[in-house]
């Protein structure tokens, strides 16, 4: 499924400056593999050695946190918008 992926500033050095990229993937896990093949080095920045998503990265599909969906196995549909967002401070 072709989806739009929003790339945060710290990762744009790997996407040749692109803030948004297109990718074809069936779920979030697959998307990370596809992004890695398009932009080598990206996987290591998103995933710990053990394969878990890094603690300070949040991934959203159409504005919904994937932890409220099925995490890395959440399936993607044609036209979905995926945002990769670092954790942000706020509140008390």
């Amino acid at each position, binding site marked *: 499924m072709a989806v739009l992926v929003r790339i945060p500033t710290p990762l744009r050095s790997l996407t040749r400056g692109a803030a948004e990229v297109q990718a074809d993937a069936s779920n979030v896990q697959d998307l990370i593999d596809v992004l890695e093949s398009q932009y080598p080095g990206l996987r290591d920045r998103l995933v710990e050695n053990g394969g878990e998503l890094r603690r*300070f990265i949040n991934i959203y599909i159409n504005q919904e946190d994937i932890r409220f969906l099925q995490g890395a196995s959440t399936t993607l549909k044609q036209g979905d918008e995926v945002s990769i967002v670092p954790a942000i401070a706020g509140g008390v």
Partner: protein
Amino acid sequence: MERPLDRALGLKCRECGRGYPSSPIHVCEFCFGPLEVDYDYEAIRRRISRARIEAGPTSMWRYADLLPFDLAESGPPVGAAVGFTPLVRARNLADAWGVQELYLKNDSVSHPTWSFKDRVVSMAVAKALEFGFDTVACASTGNLANSVAAHAAEARLRSYVFIPADLESGKVIGTLVYEPTVVEVEGTYDEVNRLCAEIGDKYHWAFVNINLRPYYAEGSKTYGYEIAEQLGWRAPAHVVVPCAGGSLLTKIAKAFRELQDLGLIPEGRTAMHAAQAAGCGPIVTMIRNDTDVLRPVRPQTIAKSLAIGNPADGYYAYRAVKESGGHGEHATDEEIIEGMRLLARTEGIFTETAGGVTVAATRKLIESGRIPRDEPVVICITGNGLKTPDVLQDRLSRDVTIRPSLSAFDRALADLESKTVA
């Protein structure tokens, strides 16, 4: 004039330790860990002393040697009167609970916008000016919005304030009055925050809680320094802190650690306790389940200033609580309101819902024995009740309305007294 203290070395990733020059960035490019200010503590140690601090201004800027900002002789460029709020000995509340030594660190009277957010915002806006920004912005549950708009006005900067559309009217009015651009977002705070992260990537503004976060968060340390100084240069055995994003708790712990390492207070452990609403308590849930994995929640609580379901510093707050031997408690909406009312009728202090959470959580921590009754406790009161009166609207009864005559009052008084006796 004395030589500037060369103390802030730049920024450093809290996770992998990678260093960055001092700049408006907040995330490690390599591991996404949060960046923190990297201090030269040896340089600080050579200059700082209790006497030097005590001779400073009666504001948070008395601790400037421990903040990442070079203070001019004329003072800070913004927020000169922020901080140094009262530490109140709460004898009546202590009696009610049977505790020996109880204090309230009362930032509900912080200048100028009645919450502890003035500390972080004056720090962040001072840095925004130093970095040359013309616009400051924030994502807020209300208190931060008030403070950013007020300090932007003082600093003559433009400001954009992003808030959830369902915020209490007191907090909205208390922002609009400073004439920032207010963007009400139809969503939860967590959605506002996520949107702001994306906006911050596109527009080059000083988002105080995003790209200025490493500096902003350091302002919270002054709350901890003040507690220690006002206790006569010692840290209390227990501190109960309201948690939303979790940053304040970690920064109070850091403040005590720094003062100990610099020899300004005696060594000792302060148990850090987290207070959250039952309807939004992911950090307390981590503590109670003893797991460092945060499960975000969808907030459902009247304590809107604490309604952050995906707290960025949740992991660090959890660790600070665990390492200090502290614990955490949730408060239901009913308990929050009772906490607000209890503080008002025993101590004469009107705090917002977040303060109700903290009072209620403290009571539970005492009742469960997590806080022994013979050890000194400080409760963090971080915001003002006049901003959130709506929650009390139908819960307080008015006593009597009379015509303006003495006989009418005599009758009313007799009536009231007979009711009290009954």
